[in-house]
């Protein structure tokens, strides 16, 4: 075991935790806004995958990671438009449509990837890093915490911005009202459907960005079905965070660490099969749900569509 606790091992562990956590963080933050507004967004897995595909495709064609991130947000938002029209405006069942969108995005991205790249999986060059002078040179935590791509810091900044938005602004209040008592919001002159559409589109863009991060920085390439449940884990993070963005960040880091620990162990030479390693994040989610599931707080109008004047 002594060989495990080297500086290189710890550093790669921390780096892995952050790389794994960022997509879940972005997806969780996005899902949180939808859930606040009363929309259970099961389609988030599909939005993430579409974001991963389009994000990769744009980054590959333009050789610009930032264009790729923009493409990813656009891809996620495109799927979210379908969700917003069908589930918010028309009031169709959010779970059935959500499953439909996830299946559709899985099929569509696999299809498009097949016709563009056939069986090849081109890679993007390694991302440029934002080195913070002084901090990056620290041992162990330096390169892993302070030598990341700028998008990582933006994701953490989003946590703070969203927390302030929910707590201190009218918009945050309106979002909550749309999820808890849509009829009351309607009577008070708020636009229930409007705010829900905004929330769903935001979810799509965030999930798409998470997917683009997964493809462009996490893996450097796009593989069909590559999200492998990260979006669903985002839903769990949002459920357990009880509306607070900071808890989504904490949760994402814990799951990221669980994921990275096993990968690091495998690199370090223990021969655990990959299937077992891939089970760990889901097992962690189940453990957390068994321990704290009762405390998960969901808005009372979640997954119920709103129709003015309906009984």
């Amino acid at each position, binding site marked *: 075991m002594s060989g495990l606790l080297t500086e290189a091992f710890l550093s790669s562990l921390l780096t892995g935790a952050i790389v794994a956590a960022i997509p879940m963080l972005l997806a969780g933050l996005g899902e949180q806004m939808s859930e606040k507004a009363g929309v259970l967004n099961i389609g988030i897995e599909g939005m993430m995958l579409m974001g991963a595909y389009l994000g990769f495709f744009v980054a590959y064609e333009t050789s610009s990671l930032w264009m790729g991130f923009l493409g990813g947000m656009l891809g996620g938002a495109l799927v979210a438009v379908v969700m917003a029209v069908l589930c918010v405006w028309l009031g*169709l069942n959010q779970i059935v449509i959500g499953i439909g969108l996830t299946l559709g995005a899985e099929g569509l991205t696999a299809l498009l990837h097949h016709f563009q790249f056939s069986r090849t999986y081109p890679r993007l060059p390694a991302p440029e890093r934002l080195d913070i002078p002084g901090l990056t040179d620290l041992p162990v935590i330096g390169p892993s915490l302070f030598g990341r791509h700028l998008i990582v810091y933006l994701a953490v900044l989003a946590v703070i911005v969203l927390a302030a938005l929910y707590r201190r602004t009218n918009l945050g209040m309106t979002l909550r009202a749309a999820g808890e008592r849509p009829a009351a919001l309607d009577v008070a002159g708020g636009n229930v459907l409007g705010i829900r559409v905004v929330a769903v589109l935001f979810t799509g863009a965030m999930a798409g960005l998470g997917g683009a991060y997964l493809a462009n920085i996490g893996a450097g390439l796009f593989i069909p079905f590559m999200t492998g449940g990260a979006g669903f884990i985002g839903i769990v993070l949002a459920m357990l965070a009880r509306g607070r963005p900071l808890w989504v960040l904490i949760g994402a880091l814990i799951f990221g660490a669980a994921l990275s620990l096993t990968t690091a162990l495998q690199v370090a030479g223990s021969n655990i099969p990959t*299937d077992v390693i891939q089970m760990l994040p889901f097992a962690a989610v189940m453990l957390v749900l068994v321990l704290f599931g009762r405390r998960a707080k969901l808005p009372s109008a979640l997954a119920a569509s709103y129709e003015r004047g309906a009984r």
Partner: protein
Amino acid sequence: MSMVQDATPSSVDPEANAADAATRPGRSAFRRIMTVTIGPIVAAFILSAVILLLVGVNPLTYYGYILERSLFSGLGLEQTATRMAPLLFLVASLIVAFRAGIWNLGTDGQFLLGAVCSAATAPLLVGVVPGWAVLLIGFAVAAAVGAVWSIIPALLKAYQGVNEIITTLMMSFLGVLMASTLVKLVFLDPSTTVPQTRTLPVADRLPRLFDTSISSGLIWGLIAVMAVHLMMTRTAFGLRLRMVGANPTAATHAGLSVPLLTMATFTISAGFAGLSGASEILGVAGNVRADWNPAYGLMVIPLVFLARFHGVGAIVLVFFYSALMIGSESAARRLGVPQDFTLVLVASLLICLGLGEYIDHRKSRKER
């Protein structure tokens, strides 16, 4: 109305729908069926055709190959009938869950673990017990394993109120990976180098029907769907489950033990998902290779919705769906379209189906 307005799956009440249609003046039942069934199916095929055109494949050729292979060739038709068996067991699983208001989205994990465990047991029993007992035990093991895999979501839902959508999905991911791990580490066939379970000899599998290659799993699948349908619509137990699905609070006030009935729903539903896995192994495949995952579970959900949780309707749809799967496997090979296109088709079906319900809902409200 099912897709419109409600969060629980059980809010579809086929009887009420039928009564609606019968008593409603003005619009004929035919036009209603067009709006909610045939219309969406046609629209979904057109929508998918547009996507095929975009990637440069002639949709008419593609759909033509599907029909030719799955319905107009003898062997294809037999394959279509054989493929129906696991799908029918899954339909039975989902009808119980959805009518009882439970979103069991974890059938893939339950299916695979059932399949792996029956593949691990059955070949060892050949020669030890009579042939019918091998199959019976194989099915029983699969049902038990499937049910066991749903215990955590069931307990969490029944006693802690934890949303089962997430827990069943998570258990499904876990189950799929667990099944693959079991094949690679525990139930490995020592006589082969590829990671797979021992193989059940063809002679010991489910008998074939008459002189065809159709597995008799088809018959058992049909029986399962009809039994579940009758249980949910014609028995007191089924009524209790539907009450829990329609309104858990009211069910509690009526003196029903909602937690126990929730547990029962999970057990039955997951048990059938396990049986589905066994039907594929004991009827067709004979063994499980590592990383095998047909992922039928989520794909069957739209069928069950389209049939409005009605057993007979679901059987008809499973036939067409099975034909679509067999046909698209062949069309994919001949036209170079990946199998994943079926997912696009299923997604369009779900979306068009939802729109059909919406239009129907709007029309029927105008008439009131």
